[in-house]
C-alpha cells in the first residue's frame, strides 16, 4: 500500500511539476548561430517573401517574381557594360576615321605602329574593367561554394533523419568534395588561368609577330571539355548513388514499418502510422530547405553571372563594330577577350549548376 502511495505521489509530482521547454528559442539560437540571417541573399529572398526560418515559404515563389528579380539585377548591372560599349565604340570610330584618311597612312611604314597605338588605347580602357569582372566571378564562385559547405550538412542531415541515410551520405560526400574543390580552384586555378588568358589575349592583339589565338582557343576548348567531363561524371555518379541509395533506404524504411506494426503489441499499427507521418513531415522540411537553398545560391551568384553575360554581350557587340569598320587588330583583341569571358562564364555556370542539380536530384529522388 505504502509502495503504491509513493509511486502515485511520484507520478503526480512528475505531472504537476512544470518544465520549461523552449524548442522555439533553441531553433532561433541555432538560426542566429548559423549566420543565415547575415547572408546578402537572405535580404533579397526576404524582400520576395522567402525566409530561411520558414522553408515552406519557397512555395510562394512565382515565375513573375523570379523574372522581376532577374530584371532588377540586369537593370542594376546595365550601366557598366553600356559605358564600356560606348567608350570602345568611340575609340573604334576614331581609329577607323584616322585609318581611312586616304592611303596616306596605309601605305607608309608607320601603319603597324599606329594600329598598335589604337589597340593599346582599347587595351587600357578594357583590361581594368574585365579584370574586375573576372575577379568578381571568382569571388562569387568561392562564395557559392562556401555557402554549400554550410548548407550541404544541414540538408543531408534532414534527409538522413527522414530515412534517406544512404542517399544523404552520398550527397554529403560528393557535394562537399565538389564545394571544397571549387573553393580551392577559384583562388588557385580559376583566377590565375583567366588572368594568364587575358594577358595572352592582349599580347596576341598588340604583337603581330606572334599568333597566340590558337593557344587561347585551345585553352577555351580544354576548359569547355574539362567542365563537360567533370559535370557528366559528377551528375552521373550522384544520380546512380541517389537512385540505388533511395531504393535501399525505401527497403529499410518499409522493413522498419513492418517490424513496428507486427512486433510492437497493441499500438504497433498506430506507431507505424506515426512513423510514416514523421517521415512525411521531415520530407516536407527537407524539400523546403532544399528549395530555399537553391534559391539562395541562385540569388548569390546571379549578380556576377548577369555581369559576366552583360560584359560578354558588350564585348561581342564591340567586336562586330570593329569588324564592320575594318580595324582588324582591335577586332582580334575583342574576340580574344570574348573567349576569356566565355571560359569564365562556363566555369561559374558549370559549378553552380552542379550544386543546384545535385540538390534538386536528391530532393526528387528522396521523396
Amino acid at each position: 500500500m505504502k509502495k503504491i502511495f509513493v509511486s502515485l505521489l511520484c507520478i503526480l509530482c512528475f505531472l504537476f511539476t512544470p518544465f520549461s521547454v523552449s524548442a522555439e528559442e533553441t531553433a532561433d539560437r541555432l538560426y542566429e548561430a548559423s549566420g543565415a540571417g547575415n547572408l546578402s541573399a537572405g535580404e533579397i529572398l526576404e524582400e520576395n517573401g522567402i525566409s530561411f526560418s520558414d522553408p515552406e515559404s519557397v512555395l510562394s515563389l512565382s515565375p513573375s517574381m523570379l523574372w522581376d528579380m532577374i530584371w532588377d539585377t540586369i537593370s542594376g548591372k546595365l550601366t557598366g557594360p553600356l559605358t564600356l560599349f560606348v567608350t570602345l565604340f568611340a575609340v573604334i570610330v576614331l581609329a577607323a576615321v584616322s585609318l581611312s584618311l586616304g592611303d596616306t597612312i596605309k601605305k607608309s611604314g608607320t601603319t603597324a605602329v599606329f594600329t598598335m597605338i589604337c589597340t593599346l588605347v582599347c587595351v587600357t580602357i578594357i583590361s581594368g574593367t574585365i579584370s574586375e569582372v573576372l575577379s568578381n566571378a571568382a569571388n562569387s564562385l568561392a562564395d557559392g561554394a562556401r555557402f554549400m559547405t554550410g548548407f550541404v550538412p544541414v540538408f543531408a542531415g534532414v534527409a538522413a533523419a527522414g530515412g534517406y541515410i544512404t542517399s544523404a551520405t552520398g550527397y554529403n560526400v560528393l557535394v562537399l568534395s565538389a564545394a571544397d574543390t571549387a573553393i580551392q580552384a577559384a583562388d588557385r586555378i580559376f583566377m590565375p588561368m583567366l588572368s594568364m588568358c587575358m594577358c595572352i589575349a592582349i599580347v596576341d592583339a598588340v604583337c603581330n609577330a606572334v599568333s597566340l589565338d590558337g593557344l587561347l582557343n585551345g585553352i577555351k576548348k580544354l576548359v569547355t571539355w574539362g567542365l563537360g567531363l567533370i559535370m557528366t561524371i559528377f551528375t552521373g555518379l550522384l544520380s546512380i548513388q541517389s537512385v540505388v541509395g533511395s531504393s535501399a533506404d525505401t527497403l529499410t524504411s518499409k522493413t522498419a514499418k513492418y517490424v513496428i506494426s507486427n512486433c510492437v503489441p497493441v499500438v504497433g499499427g498506430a506507431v507505424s502510422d506515426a512513423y510514416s507521418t514523421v517521415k512525411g513531415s521531415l520530407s516536407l522540411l527537407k524539400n523546403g530547405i532544399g528549395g530555399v537553398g537553391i534559391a539562395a545560391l541562385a540569388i548569390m551568384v546571379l549578380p556576377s553571372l548577369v555581369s559576366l553575360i552583360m560584359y560578354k554581350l558588350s564585348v561581342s557587340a564591340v567586336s562586330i563594330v570593329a569588324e564592320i569598320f575594318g580595324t582588324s587588330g582591335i577586332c582580334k583583341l575583342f574576340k580574344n577577350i570574348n573567349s576569356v569571358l566565355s571560359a569564365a562564364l562556363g566555369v561559374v555556370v558549370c559549378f553552380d549548376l552542379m550544386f543546384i542539380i545535385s540538390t534538386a536530384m536528391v530532393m526528387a529522388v528522396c521523396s
Partner: protein
Amino acid sequence: MVNIVSVCVICICAALICKITEKHSKEQAVLLVIAVSALILISVISEISPVIEKINYLAGASGLDSAYAETIFKALGICFLTRFASDICHDCNENSMATAAEIAGKLQLVLLALPMFGEIADMTAVMLE
C-alpha cells in the same frame, strides 16, 4: 574653309612647273615641291582644328578619356608628317633619308605609346599577382 578647287589648281600648276624646271634645274623643282606641299599642309592643318574639337567633344560625351583621343590624334599627325617627309626624300632619290624619316616617325610613335605600355604592364602585373 580650304577651297579644294584652289588646292587642286595649285597642285597641278606646281607639278607642271616642276616638269618644266627639272630639265634645267632639279634643285629648283624639288624646292618648289616642298614649298607647295608645306603650304597646302599648313592651310589644311589650320582648318582641321574644328573637326578635332568636335571629335574630342563626342569622345568626351561617350566617356572616353580625352588623353586617349589626344594620343590617337598625335599619332595620326606623326604618321602624316613622316609620310610627307619620306615622300619628299623619295622624290629627291634619297631613299636612305626616307628610311631614316620613317624610322624616326616609328620611334616617335613608340615614345608616344610608352605611357600606355607602362599602364598595361602595371595592370598585367596586378592580374598575375
